[in-house]
């Protein structure tokens, strides 16, 4: 997995090399500084040559400037590298998700995909930047500092090193205390969240019982608990910081005392003592970095694993290697012994045989859940059949490219999805190349023009998630306008179950009739009144296709359809 992870560095090799080598140079300069100080104290000071000391100081300053610049480079380019890799992965993930079939989205929550694309990739980006660099630098400075200390004085170096486990013990202990404090906090914030969620989702109940004060009291209780837990966490945090500070100073003092003693015995020069003290600070810095990496590594790697899991999911519906790109189908649709199930457990369609002639309007009726929508989703290959075949104009749809097949089919779905954007953009979704005239023409045909005229900014009014909310009927007409723009030879209309007022319904019916002209049309209808003019009615029940024939024929037959008709007719009488 690490190998795959590093393959993402390849396009940014140059950036990585610059960043990495800058970091290495910074670390080397960091290591060199105490040596310079030692040299200054032990060699230059005794000679009392002021000019030399000034010159050396100026040089040292120059080196510091260089180091500052390189640190800037590391911080800037390093993060740039991280975000570049993150962006590449995000693009790859988005492309991959877009290629997935319907079944993938049936089984994957939107929030799940969202967090893959945002949070996870954020962690991966951090790891991509900090991981290799910090790991290498930490090991390098630690061993480097220790090696130099060891060469100055092995005894003192080992004494300083023994302090490391003590420091680690302290950090560990503090982490546990922190963990406990955070645990309490998370527990309490969950309580607060649950309370808010209850109060907001149940606001109608709360208000109808006028229990606002009671809710506030309960909320204040939980909120207070959370505050206490958080204050405690801060207390632990403050304690952690100060005790780690104390420990590092203690290390300095111990080195100072032992060093002074060694120096009395003539084992250590003054400059060496000073540089030793400076090195103790260099020595403990990587401990921090390593512990941060221990936290970052699983986060980033788990994110990367999930990233790869999604990438490994091949889209279920793929183009056949020999798929042909069809142009202008006539709409001679044939179902041959089609079997289909969504999940291998429950067979939704069994042995369906159906012939739809070019230009015909066929209506599907039947109880809810019978499989009407399912039959229609098979035609554009949103799902593949489990058995049998569907052909259009005599060609198996699995032998056509997905793109060419779907470009021949227009669908007006039960629930219309509007994108964030203007009305114009939403209509133009049917055909990105459409001119303004074509868009206005489509809106007119969908009886949407009067509605748009009343909008504050006409065709440029923002709609969708964060804009104006359109009514159900308006949405449907917008979807119809989209389909007019697409102008496909095959049309699938999945009528909304929600009832619209008669006026709106009449208007929608008119535009649908206009849309259906000269196309092969499949209508899924819930109100039988809307399918009186259909060439043929297909009655779908849980057992499959129960009856087939014209509206009048089926009424005369006195079967399932006649019963449905009677129920609806009686309802309307009420």
């Amino acid at each position, binding site marked *: 997995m690490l190998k795959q992870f590093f393959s993402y560095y390849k396009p940014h090799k140059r950036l990585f090399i610059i960043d990495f080598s800058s970091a290495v140079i910074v670390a080397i300069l960091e290591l060199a500084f105490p040596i310079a100080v030692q040299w200054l104290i032990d060699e230059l000071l005794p000679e009392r040559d002021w000019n030399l000391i000034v010159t050396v100081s100026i040089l040292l300053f120059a080196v510091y400037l260089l180091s500052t610049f390189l640190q800037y480079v590391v911080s800037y380019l390093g993060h740039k590298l991280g975000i570049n890799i993150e962006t590449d992965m995000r693009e790859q993930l988005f492309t991959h998700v877009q290629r997935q079939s319907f079944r993938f989205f049936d089984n994957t929550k939107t929030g799940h995909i969202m967090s893959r694309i945002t949070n996870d990739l954020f962690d991966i980006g951090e790891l991509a930047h900090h991981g290799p660099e910090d790991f290498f630098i930490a090991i390098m400075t630690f061993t480097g500092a*220790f090696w130099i200390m*060891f060469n100055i004085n*092995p005894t003192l170096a*080992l004494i300083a*090193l*023994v302090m*490391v*486990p003590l420091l*680690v*013990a302290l*950090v*560990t202990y503090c982490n*546990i205390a922190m*963990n*406990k404090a*955070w*645990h309490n906090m*998370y*527990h309490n914030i*969950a309580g607060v969240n649950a309370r808010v969620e209850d109060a907001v989702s149940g606001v109608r109940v709360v208000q109808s019982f006028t229990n606002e004060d009671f809710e506030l009291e309960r909320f204040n209780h939980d909120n207070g608990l959370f505050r206490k837990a958080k204050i405690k966490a801060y207390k632990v945090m403050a304690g952690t910081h100060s005790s780690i500070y104390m420990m590092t100073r203690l290390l300095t003092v111990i080195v100072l005392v032992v060093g002074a003693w060694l120096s009395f015995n003539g084992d250590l020069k003054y400059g060496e003592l000073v540089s030793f003290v400076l090195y103790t600070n260099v020595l403990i810095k990587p401990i921090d970095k390593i512990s941060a990496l*221990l*936290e970052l*590594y*699983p*986060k980033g790697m*788990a994110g990367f694993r999930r990233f790869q899991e999604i990438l490994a999911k091949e889209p279920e519906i793929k183009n056949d290697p020999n798929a042909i790109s069809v142009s202008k189908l006539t709409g001679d649709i044939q179902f041959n012994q089609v079997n289909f199930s969504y999940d291998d457990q429950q067979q939704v369609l069994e042995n369906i045989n159906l012939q739809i002639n070019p230009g015909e309007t066929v209506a599907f009726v039947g109880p809810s859940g019978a499989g009407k929508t399912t039959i229609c989703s098979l035609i554009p290959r949103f799902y593949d059949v489990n058995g049998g075949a569907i052909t259009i104009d005599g060609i198996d749809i699995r032998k056509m490219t997905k793109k060419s097949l779907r470009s021949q089919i227009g669908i007006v779905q039960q629930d219309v999805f509007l994108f964030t954007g203007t009305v114009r953009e939403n209509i133009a979704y049917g055909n990105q190349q459409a001119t303004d005239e074509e868009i206005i023409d489509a809106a007119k045909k969908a009886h949407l023009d009067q509605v748009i005229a009343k909008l504050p900014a006409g065709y440029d009014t923002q709609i969708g998630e964060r804009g104006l909310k359109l009514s159900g009927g308006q949405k449907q007409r917008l979807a119809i306008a989209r389909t007019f723009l697409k102008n496909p030879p095959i049309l699938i209309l999945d009528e909304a179950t929600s009832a619209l007022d008669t006026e709106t319904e009449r208007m929608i019916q008119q535009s649908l009739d206009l849309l259906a002209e000269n196309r092969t049309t499949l209508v899924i209808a819930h109100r039988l009144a809307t399918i009186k003019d259909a060439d043929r009615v297909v009655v779908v029940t849980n057992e499959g296709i129960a009856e087939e024939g014209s509206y009048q024929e089926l009424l005369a037959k006195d079967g399932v359809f006649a019963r449905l008709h009677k129920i609806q007719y009686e309802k309307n009488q009420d």
Partner: protein
Amino acid sequence: MLMEWFLILAILTGSLIVLLMHWGLFLLQVVFAVVVTSFLPTDWFWGALIIQVIFGLWIIRQTFQAAWYQYQLELEKTQRIPQHYTEGGRSGIKKNFL
């Protein structure tokens, strides 16, 4: 010189054992280091060094696993995955992480 290298390894391994909070093993490491540096015949020294290296590598592996466990706990506590180690309000903190 070799002796010092052995001691460095022992101290660093000891640090990681401390991180994993296994005091018994820590004591073992200390005793091992003392025995090797003070009483062991020099012929056996290489063997001790190899044992120390292998032990150190094993401890590094354990450290990574502890890091994964820690992350698991964080995920559970921030309600991103179902509770397993922290079920029923437990904090999930172990006495040691070996």
